């Protein structure tokens, strides 16, 4: 096992934990955090795998992709929180009703 695979596997686990949290956690704030964890997992996989280059300089393309991804994640988080605030203002509840309607 190399460092690359260690971190990549760590990323996979984070992805799994995040996905589990998005679906299973009740509170919306926690779902949002879980979403971020999931994203971090993917980013970790990308960056870890980018380090498999022969030299000591990692592949910069995944790095750029991850930067893009981080920005997307923060945008989504902000939007989710804006929705959450508004929803809370109007209903005082922090989770979604169970039925899908």
């Amino acid at each position: 096992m190399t460092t690359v695979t260690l971190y990549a596997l760590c990323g996979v686990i984070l992805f799994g934990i995040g996905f589990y949290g998005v679906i299973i956690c009740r509170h919306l704030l926690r779902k949002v955090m879980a979403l971020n964890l999931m994203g971090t997992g993917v980013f970790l996989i990308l960056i870890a795998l980018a380090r498999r280059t022969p030299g000591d300089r990692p592949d910069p393309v995944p790095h750029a992709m991850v930067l893009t991804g981080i920005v997307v994640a923060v945008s989504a988080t902000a939007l989710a929180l804006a929705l959450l605030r508004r929803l809370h203002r109007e209903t005082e509840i922090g989770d979604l009703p169970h039925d899908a309607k």
Partner: protein
Amino acid sequence: MSNLLWTFDIVLCGSLVWLAWQTLATADLFKATVLFIIFGLIMALAWARLDAPDIALAETAIGAGLTGALLLSGLAAISQPGTRQQSIKLDREK
């Protein structure tokens, strides 16, 4: 040296996974948010370890810092009473 790094890597990964799990598992939302921010900071270490200083910087500033601030302020906002009456009115209008 290599063994030391190995240990470092394993501890780092282990703590990342543990923090992630705790973020979702703790009962207290505030605690979870703080754990999440710590997770972000440790993550920056991981980025640095993976020769990704750009991302380490971005993660500290955006991932941990701003996302954390957003989460905290969101948490604060939803800890206050809302204006429920209005919501019922809004609902009826539709």
